[in-house]
């Protein structure tokens, strides 16, 4: 080591020390600022996390307890939403005042992200208010429920009135959400934000749907329930064990009048007696639709019990009213359609109902057989065909109008389900009211709204109750061609599974209900307008079609088939549609298939296959808006409700 080197050592150390001091002076504020920002960040995150947790807890209460929530539970939910609102407000405020975020909002690209984050926090605040308004509505409902003054029908308009302000708040806040959302624009966002916006859009539709339906109900119910003027309805009780297009054979008629929610008249009329009285009195003959005449009526006049030959409930309801008037029935304001499945579903909520006079208890499982057993044959002179069902109806009605605590939400779910499954149909003579019924999904209207379409309609035309035992599945094979047309085969497999049902039952009852055990079905298939039939086949080969025409804005093909006791049969329709693929400008081609459920029909198992021409392929599939993944190139589902299946189609090799 040299002397010079030794002499330089202290200077170097001094220089290093000076540098260290300078660095310390520079870094110290940065570290302090960083620590401060870290603290602020932690504060923001804490509020956001707490807001999230509060929203979740509030939502849990509303989702799980819904209309059965107690006052204490609603108080808790309200506290949670208020707490969430506070947390989001603090988080927003902190972010707004943050200088770094302020700077970020002036930097290209980053600004869009930062503004989106703030906007979404703003939406979080609005959602807290929406949640609180939901609690307000539930509070009002709970208060009315506790009062127990009058039936549900009488209270309904009060419910609507008192929950109105809450829904107004929800609607107003939803508008604010929309305004904020529109400001977000369509620019690229980082995945967490873009994902949140996608979710927001989906939820926005859901909330908007709720608000819209509430608005419809608010207009519909006061008129329907006779709050504006007394209303009378013809109620058609269909027997879907003897299936006809809108739910089954009309077995019993009801006339129900409402005045300010109170039932001022409610009468059962046996449809058989009603029809016989009319025929005896007038000897009238109303020409029925040809297939109905050919296979069922065989020269007997068309009548109210089988007036529902059209699957379109408005059409069937108008026919029913016509026959009702011909038979001396009074003018009504509308028609309501229900069926056996409606009762089975209702009993699943009310629980078993005892009919003491008959020493039996009706349940979901046995109500069909009980009503058939205790509804006497009209040939028995002493029989009162309505007595059993009247007694049962009285008890079921009482329970329905006065639900047990804890059962309200189950009733709500049930009604929604009945509407979705077409087991409850409403037709109003007033066009405005009918429009509202349609908006609420209750009209049972059948028509064409574009794309591909199929509705299978079975009609029992051999006078049996065999729909209680006949099993049915549907295979649908669609091949799209380059013109966007669909070459489709719909195959229906039937199995007349009478033997297990018959075993152990009174032979007289079996004979009474099932006759010789032969199921006669006039099968119709409604498809897009201007479709052309190619072939109609059974399991042996071509059988031809009986009907190929246009109806309800659709093309319809018809064919009669019989299925003997314990027999399996297959009926297939081959047809070609016009162009049904929708090519959207700059986007995918969309193949959208609407499958309509027949009222009264069970949830038919459906297997659907869709093939594309060379050069294109299916990119995505959704069923009723939910992404779906075909298995073995097929979608399988039960047609419990109407289904909309959407395929997006792209070129082969597209990214």
């Amino acid at each position: 080591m040299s002397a010079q080197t030794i002499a330089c050592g202290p200077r170097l150390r001094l220089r290093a020390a000076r540098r260290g001091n300078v660095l310390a002076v520079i870094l110290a504020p940065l570290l302090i600022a960083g620590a401060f920002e870290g603290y602020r960040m932690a504060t923001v995150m804490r509020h956001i996390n707490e807001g999230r947790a509060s929203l979740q807890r509030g939502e849990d209460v509303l989702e799980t307890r819904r209309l059965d929530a107690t006052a204490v539970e609603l108080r808790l939910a309200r506290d949670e939403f208020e707490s969430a609102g506070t947390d989001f407000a603090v988080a927003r405020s902190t972010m707004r005042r943050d200088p770094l975020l302020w700077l970020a909002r002036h930097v290209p690209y980053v600004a869009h992200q930062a503004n989106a984050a703030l906007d979404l926090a703003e939406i979080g605040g609005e959602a807290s208010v929406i949640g609180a308004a939901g609690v307000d509505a539930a509070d009002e409902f709970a208060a009315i429920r506790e009062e127990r003054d009058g039936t549900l029908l009488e209270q309904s308009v009060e419910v609507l009135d008192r929950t109105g302000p809450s829904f107004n708040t929800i609607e107003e806040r939803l508008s604010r959400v929309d305004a904020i959302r529109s400001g977000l624009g369509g620019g690229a966002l980082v995945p967490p934000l873009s994902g949140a916006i996608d979710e927001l859009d989906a939820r926005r539709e859901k909330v908007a749907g709720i608000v819209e339906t509430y608005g419809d109900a608010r207009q519909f119910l006061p008129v329907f329930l006779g709050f504006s003027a007394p209303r009378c309805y013809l109620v058609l009780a269909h027997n879907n064990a003897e299936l006809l297009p809108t739910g089954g054979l009309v077995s019993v008629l009801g006339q129900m009048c409402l005045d300010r929610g109170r039932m001022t008249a409610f009468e059962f009329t046996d449809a058989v007696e009603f029809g016989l009285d009319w025929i005896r009195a007038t000897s009238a003959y109303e020409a029925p639709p040809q297939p109905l005449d050919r296979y069922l009526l065989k020269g007997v006049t068309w009548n109210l019990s089988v007036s529902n030959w059209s699957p379109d409930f408005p059409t069937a309801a108008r026919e029913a009213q016509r026959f009702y008037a011909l038979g001396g029935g009074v003018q009504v304001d509308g028609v309501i359609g229900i069926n056996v499945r409606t009762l089975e579903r209702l009993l699943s909520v009310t629980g078993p109902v005892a009919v003491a006079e008959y020493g039996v208890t009706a349940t979901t499982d046995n109500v069909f057989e009980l009503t058939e057993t205790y509804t006497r044959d009209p040939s028995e002179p002493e029989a009162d065909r309505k007595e059993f069902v009247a007694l049962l109806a009285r008890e079921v009605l009482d329970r329905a109008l006065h639900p047990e605590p804890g059962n309200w939400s189950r009733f709500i779910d049930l009604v929604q389900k009945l509407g979705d499954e077409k087991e409850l149909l409403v037709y109003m003579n007033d066009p405005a009211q009918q429009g509202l019924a349609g908006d609420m999904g209750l009209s049972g209207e059948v028509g064409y709204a574009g794309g591909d379409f199929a509705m299978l309609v079975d009609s029992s035309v051999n006078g049996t109750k065999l729909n209680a035992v006949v099993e049915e599945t549907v295979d649908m094979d669609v091949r799209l061609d380059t013109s966007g047309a669909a070459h489709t085969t719909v195959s229906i497999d039937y199995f007349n599974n009478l033997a297990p049902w018959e075993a152990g039952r009174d032979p007289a009852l079996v004979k009474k209900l099932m006759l010789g055990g032969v199921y006669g079905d006039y099968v119709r298939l409604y498809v897009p307008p201007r479709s052309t039939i190619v072939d109609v086949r059974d399991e042996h080969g071509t059988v031809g079609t009986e009907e190929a025409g246009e109806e309800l804005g659709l093309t319809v093909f018809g064919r009669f088939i019989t299925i003997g006791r314990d027999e399996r049969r297959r009926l297939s329709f081959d047809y070609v549609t016009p162009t049904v693929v929708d090519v959207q400008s700059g986007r995918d081609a969309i193949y959208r298939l609407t499958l309509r459920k027949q009222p009264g029909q069970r949830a038919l198992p459906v297997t659907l296959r869709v093939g594309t021409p060379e050069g294109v392929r299916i990119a995505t599939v959704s069923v009723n808006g939910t992404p779906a993944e075909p298995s073995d190139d097929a979608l399988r589902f039960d047609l419990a409700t109407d289904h909309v299946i959407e395929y997006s189609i792209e070129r082969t090799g597209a990214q």
Partner: protein
Amino acid sequence: MFRIAALLAIITTMILIASNASTAHAQYPPPDASLTVTASQTTATAGQQVTVSAVLRDADGDVLANQPCVARVASQPGTGASVSPTDITTDGNGVARTTLNVGTTPGTIQVEVVCGTIVGRVGVILGAAAQPPLSPIELPGTGSGPDTPSAGLSALLLLTAGAIALLAARRYARLGSGRRSRGAASGTAN
């Protein structure tokens, strides 16, 4: 919650639900037999002959042999369609056959077979309606993602809040860890 309104209206109707299962045959005559008429072709071309078969069964589903039936053209778009023979009898399998000459006029020809009081019918379509246009559709080459499922507004907000938290965390972490110019700005502002 709002659905209670619909519920209230609808429940009114439930009274009658129980009443829908009565046995009622007076609206139509007691079912006795069935006749299923089929054609060997669903569609045909001008001048073709199509075999029409009718299967007659009793109420129990058993075939009815040696039963006299009458076949006729019930409706047609022109005048040239005809069946021959018109008087037919069911064989040991309960089947009676005739032949339809479809003629030349496009449209649907309905053939009806009557066995006693039992009637069946089938249609044969001559010159099927024009097929859809075959001009190719130009399919685009891009795809789009699936629709987003719905699960409640507040769930969205949870995601939203999560996204915000993530963003904030990232941004603050970056800014706080020493980008000099922004760090200086942060320091002066606070």
